[in-house]
Every structure is written in C-alpha cells, then in structure tokens.
C-alpha cells in the first residue's frame, strides 16, 4: 500500500507486483516485449524503462512500487533510449516485413511505428539461420527472434514442457530445441502458446490456407467444414468486435461465400464424445478398472502424456476427440453419396488450436485409407481468408449451420472452456437434468479459471471425484500428487491451454485471464439460450448412434498403430 508519483500525478497502489503494473493502471500503455503478468519477470527487453527524479533509468517491470517513489514515463532521455533499443533490435532482425505471416499483428512492427523509427542506421546481418518447419503446428524463423525469452518461459512455466531454451552464447545466442533439432522432432506438444506470446514473427502457426484454397477451387471436391466452439467467441476480435461476442452466424455466411459446401458444428461431435465417454466412464466405475479416466479431447495433453507418462495410456479415454469423431462420421455419411456424385468429400476443420493440425496428421486417424480430417485451419487463418476475400465480416447477415450436423446441445458448446467437458459428462450422467440456475450451483467449482478445480458428484448413488486442470504444468503437478498418493480422483479433465480451447494457439492474441473469461462467458451464454440442454437429448446424435454407428463404433475410437 502506498502512493507513487507517476508523471507528476499521485497514484495509489496496493498489491501490484511491480511499478509497471501501477503505471498501466493509470492508463499509460508502457511498451514491453518481455513482460507477461502470468510469467516470471525476465527484464531483458528494457522497453519498460522509466526515469526517477535524479535522472536514473530503470526497468519498471523488475522494480517493486515504493511509497513516495516518483517517476516519469516520458522524458527526452527515455525517448532516445527506447528508440535506440528498437533500432538495435531491428538491426539484427529480418527485414521482410511485407511478406511476414504476422505483419500488422507484430509487436516489434507496432512499436517501431509508434516510436517513429523511419530508418535503421545499422547494416543488415548477412548470416541467415535456417527456418525450422519440421512441425505440423508451428514454424520457427530464428532470423526474426529478439531474444525476449517469452516462448521459453511459457513453454517451461505454463506448459511444463521446456521444448525451447536459450542455447549457445554471445553473438551465437539462439532459441532452440535440444541438440539443435527441429521443433517437430522433440517433446513439443504443438499447443502454440509460444506463438501467442512471441512479439514477432519468429514463431508462427503453420499456414495451411493454400491447401484450403486448392480444394475450394476443385469442382470434384465436396468441401465440408466443422467449426469448433471456441472459434465463434474469438474470431470477431480480428474484426473489431468484443471478445466473447458470438459470431457463428457470420462464420457460416463467410464460409458459404468462400465456397464451402456444408458448414457444421464441432459441438455436434462433442455431444457424441460426451455420450461415448460417459459410457466408458460408467463401465470403468463398475469394473473399477483404469481409473481415473482422463479426457482425450485435447491433443496437446495427449501428446504430453505420451511423452512424460506413457504408463497412463490405458487411463486416457479411448474416444477420439470431437474433431476426429466428426471427420470419421462425415466421411462415412458421404461415402455412398460421393460415389453417386463422383465427388470426394474433404473435411476442413476450423479450430482455435494449433495442436489440432498435428492431431489430424497422426497416422492412426485414418479408416481404410481415408483420413478423418484433411485440412485444419485456425481462427487466425480463417480471419485472413475472410479478409483476403474482401468480406465485410461485421456487416454480414447471419446464416444458420447446415443440417444434420449443425445441431448441438449447449453441453457440446461449452467444451471450448475449461471445465466444459466435465460439466457435459456429469450432466449426461445425472438422471434429473439441472436447469440453468441449478447448474450454476452444481458446477460452481467446475467453471472459472482456478489452476486446479475439484468437485464431488453423486452418480447412481456412487460418489464420483472429479478434477479439472488447464495448462500442462498444472496437469503435471496434479499427476505427481496422484502418483504420490496425496490425491485420488475418478475423472480428470485436462486442457493444455490455460482457460481451455478459448485461448488455443490459433486464437487472436495477446490473451490474458480477463480475455479468457470474456470468451468463456460467450460460450456459457450460448449454453443458456440453447434449447437442447444435454448431449443425450440431441436427436441427431441419438440417431447416428442407432443407425450409422450401430456396428461401427470403431470409427469413433482411437486405435493406435
């Protein structure tokens, strides 16, 4: 507690963890490259410098606020320093801005403009490092790296993976996976959180738009799209709308304009997952085998478990994720029709997630030589497709999803937020379906952004202990507690990204807890207004289980090769 003087104004502070937070509270957008409130403080970029009354300069991100402290955020000296820092950063930075994947969204570019850098006094580096495109999800271009270390800290501190580190030293300093391998050859789980925190184009999402355009123009292809829940509450941000604003109607309209034949809802397949996974859970509860049951819908988590806890293989649900279930069902559904029409169905999924790209490419997701999912594009790639087409997104008339697979329950929609899968599965298992007011009470501990959430439900007279984690570091901590015997659960939901799919690696960035909450709110709002409350009440899902999947359940389960 205390009072500071910032730019000659008195400012109260309470528990802000550094001077930077206090400054930002006053509405001044002090520039930073290496500060994220959720990560440890690194203090490397020096953009956040301030000057005290004696002319000393220090980084505000690494200084505790003190009572009576007096600082300025704008002085001739600070301006000169900041410009110098930017020029130095730019001097060793690749200069192909126009053809950069994130041009217009790059923090380095934004700050260079903001501080009026019109010319770089230093020559360009002639040594170019190779681009790492070994992964299905992300591409690393070390020539654009400014060594802020954000990716290193996210991967280590939030995801507990540590796929990237600072290596070598001096002028050879680099960000690299172990043994200078490609990021696709190490323990990276494709979550893309390093992308959402990278201020430059040094880490980008693998761009699959060309593949998309190719099938769109091909008259022999039936292009069928599925839209994941979290896309509809974030895409609008790229067009000036508020986070959490639901834009599914406009997404359908734009995809139709672009030339997609059928637009369906991944939440439909989420309903299928709920049905199948609940059945699996009940079986395991009865036989007391392979408990706890871990969810399988997040491919980042699945890969993390494979890398670090291979012994958990049988505890992870054998259900395919909604994306893959959807692909398998759609391919089966159009099989005959494709023959009649002489067409080939292509499954395109629009996902908030970079790991979904890697998931779709896994070798086991193929039935008789037909891939479940052919192309995965992220929310950001869809935004660029819409922009490329010149569609004025915010003015589009809403269109509705196609039938039959455009029908989903509210339970399927909330899959996109942490706790959503648990809520959907438990709702399915409860005999007396709760209404929305009751849900808010029953699922109070399941919703929200706490690192590890726990709850106890009574299903058929048996007490069921449930845990929910998001962020793989939290998952790792939880598993360690289970292994040590400190905790016991029957059901565990894991989402790799903090907040769940709403803050996946393919979503607009930067993201913080507030934004995650806004996006999640959007999903709960859809749930509140949806007329199908529970997955078992989705009539089309029931029909698919009765007819198509009657003796083809293998289509929706994982069969590892």
């Amino acid at each position, binding site marked *: 507690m205390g009072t500071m003087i910032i730019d000659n104004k008195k400012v109260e502070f309470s528990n802000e963890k550094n001077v930077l937070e206090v400054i930002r509270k006053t509405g001044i957008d002090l520039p930073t490259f290496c500060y994220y409130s959720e990560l440890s403080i690194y203090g490397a970029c020096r953009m956040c410098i301030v000057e005290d009354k004696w002319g000393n300069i220090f980084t505000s991100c690494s200084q505790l606020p003190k009572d009576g402290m007096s600082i300025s955020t704008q002085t001739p000296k600070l301006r000169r320093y900041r410009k110098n820092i930017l020029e130095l950063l730019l001097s060793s930075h690749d200069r192909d801005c126009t053809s950069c994947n994130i041009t217009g969204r790059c923090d380095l570019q934004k700050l260079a403009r903001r501080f009026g850098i019109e010319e770089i006094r230093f020559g360009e580096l002639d040594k170019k490092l190779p681009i790492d495109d070994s992964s299905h999800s992300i591409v690393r271009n070390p020539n654009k790296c400014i060594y802020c270390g954000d990716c290193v800290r996210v991967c*280590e501190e939030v995801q507990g*993976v*540590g*796929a*990237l*580190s*600072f*290596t*070598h*030293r001096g002028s050879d300093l680099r960000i*690299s*996976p*172990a*043994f*200078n391998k490609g990021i696709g050859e*190490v*323990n990276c789980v494709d979550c893309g959180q390093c992308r959402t925190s990278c201020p430059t184009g040094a880490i980008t999402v693998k761009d699959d738009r060309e593949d998309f355009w190719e099938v769109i123009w091909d008259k022999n292809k039936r292009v069928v799209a599925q839209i994941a829940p979290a896309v509809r509450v974030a895409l609008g941000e790229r067009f000036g709308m508020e986070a959490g604003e639901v834009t599914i109607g406009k997404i359908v309209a734009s995809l139709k304009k672009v030339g997609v034949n059928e637009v369906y809802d991944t939440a439909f397949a989420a309903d299928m997952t709920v049905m199948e996974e609940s059945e699996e859970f009940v079986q395991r509860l009865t036989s007391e085998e392979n408990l706890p049951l871990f969810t399988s819908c997040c491919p980042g988590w699945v890969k993390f478990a494979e890398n670090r806890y291979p012994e958990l293989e049988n505890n992870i649900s054998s259900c395919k994720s909604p994306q893959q279930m959807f692909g398998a069902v759609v391919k089966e559904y159009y099989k005959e029709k494709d023959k009649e029409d002489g067409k080939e169905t292509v499954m395109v999924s629009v996902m908030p997630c970079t790991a979904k790209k890697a998931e779709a490419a896994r070798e086991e997701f193929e039935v008789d030589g037909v891939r479940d999912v052919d192309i995965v594009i992220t929310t950001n790639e869809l935004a660029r497709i819409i922009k490329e087409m010149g569609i004025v997104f915010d003015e589009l008339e809403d269109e509705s999803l196609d039938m039959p697979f455009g029908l989903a329950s509210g339970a399927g929609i909330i899959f996109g937020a942490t706790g959503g899968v648990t809520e959907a599965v438990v709702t399915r298992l409860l005999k007396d379906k709760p209404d929305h007011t009751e849900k808010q009470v029953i699922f109070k501990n399941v919703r929200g952004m706490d690192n590890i959430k726990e709850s106890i439900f009574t299903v058929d007279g048996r007490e069921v202990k449930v845990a929910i984690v998001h962020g793989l570091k939290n998952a790792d901590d939880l598993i360690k507690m289970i292994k040590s015997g400190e905790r016991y659960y029957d059901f565990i939901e894991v989402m790799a990204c903090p907040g769940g799919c709403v803050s996946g690696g393919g979503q607009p960035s930067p993201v913080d807890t507030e934004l995650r909450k806004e996006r999640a709110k959007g999903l709960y709002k859809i749930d509140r207004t949806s007329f199908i409350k529970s997955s078992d009440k989705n009539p089309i899902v029931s029909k698919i289980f009765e007819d198509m999947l009657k003796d083809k359940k293998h289509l929706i389960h994982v069969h590892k090769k």
Partner: protein
Amino acid sequence: MLTSEMIETVDTIINEHDNNQSSIISILQGIQREYRYLPEEALNYVSDRMDISSSKIYGIATFYENFSLEPKGKHIIKICDGTACHIRKSQPILDALRKELSLSEDRITTDDLLITVEMVSCLGACSLAPVVNVDGVVYAKMTPSKTQALVRKIKEGQLSEDN
C-alpha cells in the same frame, strides 16, 4: 543408444551429487570426464531422471566452451591464437596440422578418434609464443614442423610415455 553401462555410469555421477538440480554443471563435467564428450543419450537420460528439460541441459552444454557435444579424440591439441601467438605465426601451425590430419574448421577430430585439433584464445603463456598445448602439457616456441613431429609421436604411441 542408451546402454545399461551408460545408465549405470550416469546414475553414479548423479547420485554423487545427490540428484541435486543445482549441481547440473558438475554432473555434466563428470559425464564429460567419463566419455570425453557429452553423449546425447546420456543428456536425455539426465533430463528424465532429474526433471530438467533436455533443451535446458543443451543450453548449458552449449554455453560453456569446455563442454563438447561431439566425441573428442584421445589426444587434444590446442593451438593458441591469442594476440602474441597470432603475431608469431600460430596460423601456419594450425594449417599444417589440419592438412596433415585431414581436418578442417568444422571437422576437428580424426575419424579414428585419436586426435582433436582446436584453436583456442590465449593460453596465458605469451612469452613462450607461439604455444601449443597437448593433453595439458605446454610446448613453447613451436613451428609447423615441430608440431608435426609431435603428431607423429602421438601416432606412434610414444607421447603418453614421455609425459
């Protein structure tokens, strides 16, 4: 390939340091002493056992000059290229050695893993320039032909006896 011998060796080294994460540098030194370089399999094993990511271990191993990720020769010849040695013609010594052993800037160890040739900055013996250090022993006022003679001794297996 991670062999059971390697696991045993690395386990011993890790246990000597009580599996303490902050002793990672000493542990790497121990491994390097054993294998004369840091084998990738050994580092991955350390990563699993000590819960330190292998990228971080790689970062440490590439930060310090003295760690090597490539197998090194049985004998290590260091040619000083500090200012004094450079002026007194250390470069021709290096060129002659590399030629004799078919090595280059990127290929510093002979295929039979007998000899590694490294260029280093000041060895701190400027008054003796140009100096060459073979397995820790300093040879003063060297010339290309004197150095070649040393190499022949190594090849004939006589050098270790001299020491």
